[in-house]
């Protein structure tokens, strides 16, 4: 498995026009690399400062390490409850 499983939720999912994308792990070291790769294909994204990140379903920072097989998610501030 040499890919990274990327998920998008809520308005970020809408802007990407999809909820999931698999990317090649080649050249990916941290979350920010993943964001740059997927954002390249998408205009009109919210500022990175307003984007929350999870790696393998745990909150993570933009500079958190990522490797092949990881699941990375991008989403806006949560509004449950």
């Amino acid at each position, binding site marked *: 498995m040499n890919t990274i499983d990327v998920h998008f939720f809520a308005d970020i999912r809408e802007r990407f026009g999809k909820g999931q994308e698999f990317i090649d792990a080649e050249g990916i070291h941290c979350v920010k690399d993943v964001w740059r790769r997927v954002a390249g294909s998408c205009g009109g994204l919210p500022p990175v400062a307003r984007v929350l990140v999870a790696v393998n*379903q*745990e909150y993570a920072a933009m500079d958190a390490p990522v490797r092949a097989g990881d699941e990375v998610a991008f*989403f806006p501030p949560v*509004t449950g409850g």
Partner: protein
Amino acid sequence: MVRLLAHPFDPWAEIESHAQRNPQWAGKFGAAAVFVGSLRDFNQGHAVSEMSLEHYPGMTEKHLDKVSREAAERWEILEPLVIHRYGQLKPADPIVVVAVWSAHRDAAFCACRYIIDELKTRAPFWKHEETEAGHRWVTPE
């Protein structure tokens, strides 16, 4: 116990059955603190006719399990009940239930408040409203 439901539910009946599923609890707790959140028909300046709740399957359950465990480590409580809706909701529908049983009221109140506060600020749910002025993603207040 954490449950995510795609259909409407009766919070009070769920609380009652949770206690009945635990007959060994009878007489052991002196306090139950409960929070029930439900959908208002008015939010941030607009009448709301419908809402959909998106979530992150897998991460949501993990997060709510973790918060329940943290509460049980911090306060002397029995196993909390956390139920959260997702999918399409109508005004007045219950969204969330947090119920905590304990020997003492302070532990029950504090743990209940802790769980709902952590859920609101960290659990991966997103509300999308249909209002008189169109639809919109809800932003945190």
